[in-house]
């Protein structure tokens, strides 16, 4: 496995090797009104066996990053800079045929709302087999692939006999489990889970997240979780990246970022999240709305909403800088952010 020197070592145990490195990724969408700067200079590393969470609000670029990793970006998307290296190999430089080989075999994805994407007229097992036929080289025999599918169904807590059933015979939670089984069917190294439990009720969500954590530990899998729900990210990840308006503004160990967020946006996001535990407190609203990325603010993209804004924030873009053990923040005034959540801000 090769390590490129330009990539900053991201948060995780220093001994583990990176499977995926995203380095200075810039991706824009071309529209009639101009370029939408959806992903701007995003850099992070995913290590073997690591669970990384990307959080942010709608339009912050988290799904655009996920789609880029599989090169399933929209047609009007263009990569302007950066690399996505899978075990050292730049995926942005390979042909589509090669990329197709990496998809599912190396990186698979649980798409947002995928539980509703099953074809109602085919048995679930046949649909998973279709994916396996396309990606196994040499191809598996029918018996082998059904055996493999049975194993993955057991992993996600479904009875293998369910493979013979049609999607309408599954409940919502079971359909989502089957989607995860499908993502596991070709033994990928990395799973990208984009809002894997958003449409589910909390009790089912709890079961599926537990299942995914167990699979991750048992198979030594690396998972990138993408969610707007920071409570979910708090529970399942060891590293968290907070995105705002196309940029990664804070990256660090989940415990550390939740205990002491240092980017004002991350701080305010945590301050404005209601919880069923702890003292009932007044939540601090984030004033304003996310910017239009057709014409993003100068300097720091968060400055129009930031209580710590100075002239420097308007003029200069803050780089992602190391402020602690594997903890990086892109803010000029991170040292002014209060230590405890929920304090009154200027």
């Amino acid at each position, binding site marked *: 496995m090769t390590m490129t020197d330009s990539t900053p070592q991201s948060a995780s145990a220093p001994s583990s090797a990176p499977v995926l490195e995203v380095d200075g990724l810039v991706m824009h969408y071309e529209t009639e009104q101009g370029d939408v700067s959806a992903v701007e200079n995003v850099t992070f590393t995913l290590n073997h066996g690591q669970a990384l969470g990307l959080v942010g609000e709608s339009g912050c670029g988290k799904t655009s990053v996920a789609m880029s990793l599989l090169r399933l970006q929209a047609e009007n998307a263009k990569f302007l800079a950066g690399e996505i290296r899978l075990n050292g190999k730049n995926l942005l430089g390979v042909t589509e045929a090669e990329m197709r080989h990496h998809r599912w075999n190396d990186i698979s994805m649980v798409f947002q709302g995928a539980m509703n994407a099953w074809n109602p007229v085919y048995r679930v097992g046949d649909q998973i087999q279709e994916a396996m036929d396309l990606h196994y080289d040499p191809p598996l025999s029918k018996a082998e692939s059904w055996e493999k599918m049975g194993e993955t169904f057991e992993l996600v807590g479904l009875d293998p006999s369910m493979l013979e059933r049609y999607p309408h015979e599954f409940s919502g939670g079971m359909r989502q489990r089957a989607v995860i089984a499908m993502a596991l069917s070709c033994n990928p190294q990395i799973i990208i889970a984009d809002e894997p439990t958003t449409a589910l009720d909390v*009790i089912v969500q*709890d079961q599926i*997240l537990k299942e995914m954590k167990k699979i991750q530990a048992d198979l030594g899998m690396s998972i990138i979780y993408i969610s*707007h*729900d920071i409570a979910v990210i708090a529970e399942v990840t060891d590293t968290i990246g907070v995105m705002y308006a196309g940029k990664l503004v804070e990256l660090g160990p*989940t415990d550390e970022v939740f205990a002491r967020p240092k980017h004002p946006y991350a701080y305010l996001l945590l301050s404005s999240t*209601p919880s*069923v535990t702890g003292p009932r407190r007044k*939540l601090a609203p*984030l004033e304003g709305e996310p910017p239009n990325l057709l014409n993003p603010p100068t300097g720091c993209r968060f400055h129009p909403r930031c209580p710590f804004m100075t002239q420097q924030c308007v003029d200069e873009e803050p780089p992602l800088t190391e402020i602690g053990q594997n903890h990086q923040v892109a803010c000029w005034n991170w040292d002014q952010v209060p230590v405890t959540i929920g304090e009154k801000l200027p």
Partner: protein
Amino acid sequence: MTEPLVQVESLRKLFPISKGMFRKATDFVHAVDDVSFAIRPGESLGLVGESGCGKTTTGRMLVKLLDATDGTIEMSHNGTRFDIAHIEKDEMKDFRGKVQMIFQDPYESMNPRRTVFDTVAEPLAVQGIGKPNEREERVAELLTRVGLTPAASFLFRYPHELSGGQRQRVAIARALVLGPSFVVADEPTSMLDVSIRISIMDLMLKLAEEFGVSYLYITHDLAVARYMCDRIAVMYLGKIVEIGNTETVLSDPKHPYTKALLSAVPVPDPSYKRPPVEIKGGINKAINPAPVCRFLQRCPIATDYCRENDHPPLEDKGDGVQVACYLVEKKSAPAPV
């Protein structure tokens, strides 16, 4: 104790399952089954539960978007009492001035071809309140109060020119323009981003005080209910299983379902270890349910007594909390000091 603003008594809603055009339905989904609760003036009640538990159906019956199969919904307004479940057609217009609704999806609940002014002023026009120029003043004042300032710049915009948060503010203005005393809010913030959500929730709390409005706040999110509501009612398959003061219920849940629901909520604190969730599986539809406890199949502590008896009644189990479970002991009142 003050007289309740809304008193719901034995409310039921059965949906027939169609067996074909000319056949009479024999199967029914018991969406809401014998639900009773009261909302006091100025108080907000949170109605929580998983999807399919009947919380939206209950809310819709309270604004008369659905007719109740059975039961009464008494409401008092300016000293008079009337039954929402049995309103006559000619009283509907009057009723709409007293009770309003805020919907979940601000992208669906507004006519895309009408301006903000048209949307907010329509209830005034329907009710024949004020002259057109007075209406414009009233709408502008409301827009200011829901935080859409300067109001003049919002009056003649179309929904597509507004963000989700701004649209929900318009929906709130529309709900309040007639000065209702009761508003049913069905997941009003669940489509919004976290950073916008708190400002809308704070706005609703502020307006409740200023306008003297009570909410029935329907949500699947216990953390949101905790932030918004004085009291909370937990629904399961058409029944209320626990109702009481929000903090009391959440700090000491008594019904096994409330316990499971609460321990399944993810907490935004990686160091917090949640108690294990004792129940499995998802919610089913209550089609011709057996008369036993609705929660029996998933209950981790059910006994033979539960299997042999009817659905337990909602009873006071101490701390002012009512619970529908045979196995929850009544907490005795603390001895006077």
